[in-house]
């Protein structure tokens, strides 16, 4: 009973602290709220109101006569300027490469697409050429989208080129003369060019589009998560985990604060076992994080439409996060001599482990950053916050109970380890 009395007293004090409340609830929600506003979350039901990326295009492609009317460069420009992409890209043609790069440098455009002179020849014939993407280094999302589209076209040509090359080799092996095979290759290339041109024209008419870019509203109806929603969701879970660990450290610090204020020694003079006193304080840390997580989950779902996943896996992920964050806070606090050290240790350790642990949040939703995302994910699993994030994302990606068991087991095991070390250190300290 005394254990509960101590926990209730600590909770009462925590939730009366304006600083603690701001840290626990306001800052995580504010951070996600900024993303929400940045992506036009208040703009209505259209959802994806991401500002169009300004693109400067320079088409230097000059196809030879052997390719007829087909121009791969022209096709790429048509694609970028297509109606379907008008919501995402604001394309204008520049007079030359220097002018396009200058526009990016002056931040008048997010990215410049410079198509080389021999692009069609490289796409359909021999040789190689590179489409230059010159982007604003401070931006990732818009240039990433452009890169994605350009890559699709270039990859298509490369695939066709490989296919015709293989076909020619096999024909030669089958006894067809090299000159006939080469003529056939030219014919296939021309046919491919013709097909691609017709596809582009059909695309301009809005039929059989090469790319099908769907709005978030449609995506929701079709059960596909929108990019905006994904960014908001991952940001929300990242912020929640980051600040849950901070809250746990701050709540655990109450042991040191009470020691310095004299109330902890005074508690030790009452007929209350030391284990009850420490147990009560640890229970308060646990409940504080639990309340924080529940409140953030509910508010984020209501305010930002974050889809957290199925209830049971979500409950398991919550359990893992609460246990791990609480025990890590207790462990870290047990290493400190006094509250003067908390600023450095909490600020340093929590920030570093937290940022590494949730780093994949900042790369996972960016099309151009898939490699970085994988690295970030691997690194994050070296941190307790990383395992918490992993577990939550499994649930948010639609994972079931069996999917969340592994990250949950790791969280509970880490939590048990941190908890035992922290409690042993405190028991020794107050023995």
């Amino acid at each position, binding site marked *: 009973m005394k254990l509960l009395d101590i926990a209730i007293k600590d909770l*009462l*004090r925590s939730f009366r602290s304006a600083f603690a409340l701001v840290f626990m609830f306001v800052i995580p929600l504010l951070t996600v709220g900024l993303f929400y506003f940045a992506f036009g979350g208040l703009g209505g039901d259209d959802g994806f109101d991401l500002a169009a990326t300004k693109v400067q295009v320079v088409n230097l492609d000059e196809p030879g006569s052997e390719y007829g009317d087909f121009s791969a460069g022209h096709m790429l420009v048509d694609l970028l300027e297509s109606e379907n992409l008008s919501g995402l890209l604001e394309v204008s043609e520049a007079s030359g490469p220097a002018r396009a790069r200058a526009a990016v440098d002056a931040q008048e455009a997010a990215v410049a697409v410079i198509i080389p002179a021999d692009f069609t020849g490289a796409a359909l014939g021999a040789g190689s050429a590179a489409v230059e993407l010159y982007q604003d280094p401070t931006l990732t999302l818009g240039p990433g989208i452009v890169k994605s589209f350009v890559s699709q076209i270039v990859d298509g040509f490369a695939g066709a080129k490989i296919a015709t090359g293989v076909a020619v080799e096999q024909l030669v092996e089958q006894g067809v003369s090299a000159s006939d095979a080469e003529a056939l290759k030219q014919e296939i290339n021309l046919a491919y060019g013709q097909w691609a041109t017709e596809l582009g024209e059909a695309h301009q008419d809005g039929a059989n589009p090469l790319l099908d870019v769907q709005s978030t509203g449609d995506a929701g109806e079709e059960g596909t998560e929108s990019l905006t929603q994904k960014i908001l969701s991952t940001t929300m879970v990242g912020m929640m985990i980051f600040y849950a660990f901070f809250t746990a450290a701050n709540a655990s610090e109450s042991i040191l604060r009470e020691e310095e204020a004299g109330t902890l020694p005074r508690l030790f003079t*009452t007929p*209350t076992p030391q284990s009850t006193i420490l147990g009560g304080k640890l229970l308060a840390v646990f409940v504080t994080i639990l309340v924080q997580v529940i409140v953030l989950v509910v508010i984020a779902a209501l305010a930002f439409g974050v889809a957290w996943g199925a209830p049971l896996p979500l409950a398991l992920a919550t359990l893992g996060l609460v246990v791990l964050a609480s025990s890590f806070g207790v462990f870290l606090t047990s290493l400190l001599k006094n509250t003067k050290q908390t600023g450095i240790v909490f600020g340093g350790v929590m920030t570093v482990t937290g940022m590494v642990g949730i780093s994949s949040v900042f790369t996972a939703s960016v099309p151009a950053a898939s490699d970085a995302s994988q690295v970030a994910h691997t690194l994050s699993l070296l941190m307790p916050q990383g395992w918490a994030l992993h577990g939550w994302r499994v649930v948010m990606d639609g994972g079931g109970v069996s999917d969340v068991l592994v990250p949950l087991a790791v969280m509970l095991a880490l939590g048990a380890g941190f908890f035992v070390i922290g409690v042993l250190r405190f028991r020794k300290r107050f023995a």
Partner: protein
Amino acid sequence: MSTDTAIRVQELHKNYGDVYAVRGISFDVHAGEIFSLLGPNGAGKTTTISMVSCLLEPTQGDVSVVGHSIRRDPMGVKAAIGVVPQEIALYEDLSARENLTFWGKMYGLRGSALRQRVNQVLEITGLAERQKGRTGKFSGGMKRRLNIGIALLHRPQILIMDEPTVGIDPQSRRNILDSVKEMNRQGTTILYTTHYMEEAQELSDHIAIMDHGELIAYGTHDELVEIVGEMDRITLMISAESASVMERWRTTDGVHQITAEDGTLNLLVDDSNVVLPRLFESATQAGTRITSVEIQEPNLEAVFLHLTGRALRD
């Protein structure tokens, strides 16, 4: 241990490595009395009562509190005592009532008994009208009163008070001393530490004087004062520091002890009426002028000076 012994301290030691905080002290506190541990800062008073209240484990020795050993039955000891720490130990973000209710629960009170006792303590401490106010906004005196009130919640047999009047105004100090006497009158045994000689003198049935972790004197006020016999204490200030006048006074008939601190000279003399003219004469011969004189009858300050060669305020 006789039935009227509330606390028995036996050969108590506490050391931190090579630093000896308490060196083998022993004394008895009788049930129903006020017992003072008197000594300057750093004498070992707080360390001693920290061991008595089970906050510190002794390096050696034992303490028995109403029959419970601090080593074998600390919970029994804790149930019998109420501790008033030197520093105010309250939750400043809780109200006075919330503080008392929480601490009452820690002493095992529940339900109506708890509510009733909280109300009584609020009345005793004069905080009934401010019971809902955050204690962080209380004055220093109000916090002190609440700090004491917490220790009274479970009606302890023994109240341990560690310098409860440090750093407070004279009026609050007076109130605390009166309340200590009142609690004692109602039957509570009180173990009180102080470095104020006049507090120990006013309150105590028995006094133990501590210095450098040792018990250097023990007894009633009168018994202790007898150590210095009929000697008076004279405090002098002279116009200029003079080694020669110190030497002259040291050999003056009737002067037993002389110490100099911060430009003030403390002398223990047989009879100040007889010795004082001799001191003036010696000062004149040494070319020094006495600028102020204060004569005190034999008291605990003189006892401490006699035993240690230093003033108690150090």
